[in-house]
């Protein structure tokens, strides 16, 4: 037990300099390992490049902020964009998904950092999501402190990118906190805005409670198994001493509660709407995609890799949580008042809660059949990331002319900006899962098929009902887009179709925002034509 503790500590020590002082320990460690078994672990720099690069870029941006004159601050945003693109590019050599590093040099085969297929896909999702968030924020950050904003965003993204690769509980917790702590600050970054600080406080308090609960759970699990490596935990949980059985079960349950908070699963979802509404719009988009990805990838790692022997505990619990989450999210979204201020973001917030429910279904199904089911979660998350960011991008576009961002502000968007309206309609129908949003439909089909395959018929039926409820508000919003604008008669003559009769006040749309909308729509349309691109993850084992 002590030996194991020291190796884990060793891995932590090895990781700490990795982020700041590159190029010392790695080579020496491998030289030594030839004759004497050393506890110093070797480092595969390429494998850890994506999160490392992001973290380094965060520091560079923070320092550069000090030396840049105010009118040059825009460069920081482009630097952030470049760094994220570079981090994404570093995922290409990792495609084969067979690298792992920070491995224990003595005894069992266990690594703290693994770049398998799951890691690579989630890192691509997280970094891509952050990339789009940057595009959304480039023109919104004038009123915000630029240096801090980009630093915090990059720091959070690096934590989020580290998380899917972590294979021990300590790294997992550290990654989760690195991803969350900057997010609190980002939510509250609008200085002098009461809503913003209130949102940040709410988010902070609930998140800290979650972390505390999770740490308690982790310590219980460590107490029973004596190891932090996920695979080792799985092996040792198989035969826990009867005395420690209760402790182990409690530990498993508390750890899961912590992650449930992060995914915003009901009943731990109450912070979501206020936080999204209070935060700057791009940050709401970031939280709804990257924040969620952090939560559910952590959940997948602990359930499927660390606690498979307690599948009978977390399986039903997650199934109930999924059913509850989607129902709560959809019913609340249904009850949104279209005329209320920022109701569009509020609706997207509740819809993201509901979508989190769908994401949980395959994880629950994995408890009843095989680990391959979680591929459905990954495929669904990829679809959700693309279309949800797209919806937020159009919302950001509308927010430029209608700061209130009410649902009723979207009325007649087709008359003023036909392409944006068509894009938003497409995104919403993808979220609803109806053609022409073919990718949304098939992503839902994989989730359904995971549930049916695992024999969770009741959950599939609950989800079916929820899909119908969700259609109501998605389609209502879509219908608003194509309504005649306010003032114009609803059933006008045939010539309302021509843009000449409606002369909207056109604002020049900033290029980054256009790029974000074009990128997400292109991705959505491409995926609808070739759904195999993301759905292939649903059919194979990712670990």
């Amino acid at each position, binding site marked *: 037990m002590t030996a194991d503790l020291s190796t884990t500590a060793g891995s932590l020590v090895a990781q700490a300099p990795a982020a700041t002082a590159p190029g010392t320990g790695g080579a020496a460690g491998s030289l030594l390992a030839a004759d004497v078994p050393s506890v110093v672990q070797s480092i595969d720099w390429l494998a850890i490049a994506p999160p490392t690069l992001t973290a380094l870029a965060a520091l560079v941006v923070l320092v550069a902020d000090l030396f840049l004159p105010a009118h040059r601050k825009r460069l920081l945003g482009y630097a952030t964009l470049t760094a994220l693109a570079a981090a994404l590019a570093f995922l290409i050599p990792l495609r084969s998904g067979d690298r792992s590093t920070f491995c224990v040099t003595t005894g069992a085969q266990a690594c703290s950092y693994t770049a398998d297929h799951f890691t690579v896909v989630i890192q691509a999702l997280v970094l891509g999501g952050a990339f789009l968030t940057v595009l959304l924020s480039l023109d919104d950050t004038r009123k915000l402190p630029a240096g801090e904003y980009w630093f915090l965003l990059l720091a959070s993204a690096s934590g989020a990118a580290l998380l899917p690769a972590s294979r021990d509980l300590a790294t997992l917790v550290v990654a989760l906190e690195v991803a969350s702590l900057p997010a609190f600050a980002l939510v509250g970054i609008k200085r002098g805005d009461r809503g913003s600080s209130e949102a940040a406080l709410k988010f902070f308090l609930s998140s800290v409670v979650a972390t505390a609960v999770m740490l308690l759970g982790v310590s219980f699990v460590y107490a029973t198994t004596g190891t932090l490596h996920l695979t080792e935990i799985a092996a040792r949980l198989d035969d826990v001493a009867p005395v420690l059985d209760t402790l182990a079960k409690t530990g498993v349950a508390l750890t899961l509660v912590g992650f449930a908070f992060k995914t915003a699963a009901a009943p731990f979802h109450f912070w979501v709407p206020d936080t999204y509404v209070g935060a700057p719009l791009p940050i709401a988009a970031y939280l709804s995609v990257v924040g969620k990805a952090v939560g559910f990838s952590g959940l997948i790692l602990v359930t499927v890799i660390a606690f498979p022997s307690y599948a009978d505990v977390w399986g039903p619990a997650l199934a109930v949580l999924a059913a509850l989450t989607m129902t709560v999210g959809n019913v609340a979204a249904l009850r949104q008042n279209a005329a209320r201020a920022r109701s569009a973001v509020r609706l997207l917030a509740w819809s993201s809660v509901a979508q989190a429910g769908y994401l949980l279904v395959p994880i629950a199904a994995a408890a009843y059949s095989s680990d391959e089911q979680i591929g459905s979660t990954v*495929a669904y998350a990829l679809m959700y990331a693309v279309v949800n960011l797209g919806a937020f991008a159009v919302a950001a576009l509308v927010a430029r002319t209608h700061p209130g961002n009410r649902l009723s502000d979207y009325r007649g968007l087709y008359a003023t900006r036909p392409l944006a309206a068509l894009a938003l309609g497409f995104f919403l*129908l993808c979220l609803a899962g*109806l*053609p*022409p949003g*073919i990718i949304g*439909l*098939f992503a839902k*089909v*994989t989730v*359904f*098929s995971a549930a*049916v*395959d695992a024999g969770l*018929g009741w959950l*599939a*039926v609950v989800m*079916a*009902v929820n*899909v*119908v409820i969700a*259609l*109501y508000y998605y*389609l209502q919003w879509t*219908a608003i887009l*194509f309504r*005649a604008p306010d003032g114009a008669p*609803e*059933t*006008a*003559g*045939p*010539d*309302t*179709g*021509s843009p000449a009769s409606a002369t909207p006040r056109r604002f020049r749309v900033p290029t980054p925002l256009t790029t974000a909308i074009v990128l997400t729509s292109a991705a959505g349309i491409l995926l609808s034509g070739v*759904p*195999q691109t993301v*759905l*292939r*993850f*649903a*059919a194979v084992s990712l670990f």
Partner: protein
Amino acid sequence: MTVIDISPSVMQFLLAFIVVAPLLGALAALLPAPPGLRGRNPDQAVLRHGVTVTGAVLVAAIVLAAGFDHDHPATMQATTDISWIPALDVRIHLGIDGISLPLLVLTALLTFLCALYSYFKLPAGPSPKAFVALVLVLESGTLATFAVLDLLLFFLAFEMVLIPMYFLIARWGGDQRQAAAWKFILYTLLGSVVMLLGLLLIGLKSGTFDMVALATDNGRGLTTSVQVIAVLAIGLGLAVKTPMWPLHSWLPDAHTAAPTVGSVLLAGVLLKMGTYGFVRILLPVAPDGMRTFAPYLAAFAVVGIVYGSLACLALARTGAKGDLKRLIAYSSVGHMGFVLLGIATMTPTGVNGALFANIAHGLITGLLFFLVGAVKDRYGTADLDTLAGATGAALYGRAPRLGALLAFAAVASLGLPGLAGFWGEMLTLFGAYSPAEGLSRPAFRTFMAIGAFGTLLTAAYMLIVVRRVCMGEHAPHSRLSSDEQPQQAPRTADGPQPSGAAGSQPSGAAGSPPLETAGPRTATTPQLADIHPYEAAAWTPLVALTVLAGLWPAVLLGLTDPAVQQLLAGGKS
């Protein structure tokens, strides 16, 4: 035997073209017209585009039917089989046999007629651009439903019609259109999501989503309990679409609110998707499960027949304020009851009858909705009491050809021998007389008796409608207003008119007095515009086919029978 010899690869291309062309056409409709195709104005150009695309699809469908090997209607022809989503085992598997070919042609025909009709008479509402695009997407979804041979693709096609139909009702509909559109889409979606669960169950348990392979298996790879659950789930989804009696309540509202073209397509082809699913998926893939539920299905079907007829009788009564479109919607519930009864017998006779009734209903009810739409345009209302006034609407006198056509459609609908409606009803009742093995004979004979009684009720309300709409006192004193007709008719026939005028008041009948005050008709009942050339063009094919199918049923039965025999026998005919 083929009418014309076409190489297999051309047949493949034709079928793929039929499914994809409307989609591409829909996209093209949203783009501005290229120079040279601008027409008189953008609206005219886009409506003409709709006619062109649906016309091309119709031609392709007719050529496909001509190239179809009529000696082997049980084999899948013009098949394409490409892998699309290996992860879900979804294949783009297209093909037609004797069951799907008639439905495919019917869909192409009805959509073309609708496009033609709207070219001259656009329903009141926003821009025709979106209208044409939506109709084309709708056509593509319906055609795909009949052409695909993969369960998940079938589901995709089934869902594809929802959004266009929702917008057609919600944007171009009449009173209560929002509520009706919501009811339509939420009901159907709930049904089809439950259906998806059943389809997944079948696919996962048998290891394939391919309908041909599943039909050849004939349920041997599935345990009875799986079949029962699958039939329950899939049947529920299809029954909502069909619609079966207790699940029908979305239909009257949707029909009442939908524009004429929407009603025609809804009744003519969308309802067929439900019954087609029963025949194509449930009968061959899960025969054991189907046998379990067949008596219940038959029971609901005959309740639907009687209920639909009684509802129509109630609506046709004087003073009931019955809407003609609603009445025809209820009559659809009754007619689809016959189709379901035929399917529930699980015999070749019954299923053939069901497929025949399917086509006949598409032709006749499509025609009826066209005619009622025309009556509504001329009188400004479809409310039977307002229309008929004290004595009757006197359509025979005021617009003789329209009146005659309405009477024709009504008697065709009630199943007069010699017209299309007859054979379907007769064969289904015949099938119910001796149902398949394992089904209770006494029960089905009771159902047969009740169904036969339902035909009498159908006759009763249809004749009441004819009496109240077509007959009545007509005093053609006012020569003046009838003289006006020649001046007005060409204007309407000319091309799309400003839709504001078209919808808000009875077009071509500007001379008719406000009908609310027409209670005791005393002096003059002005002549109404009789059938316009474009209306004649849109309706003649339906009339001709109704007569043809009635006089020569072998055309259809020769196609469906071998395919049905093979489906019921599990691939070994």
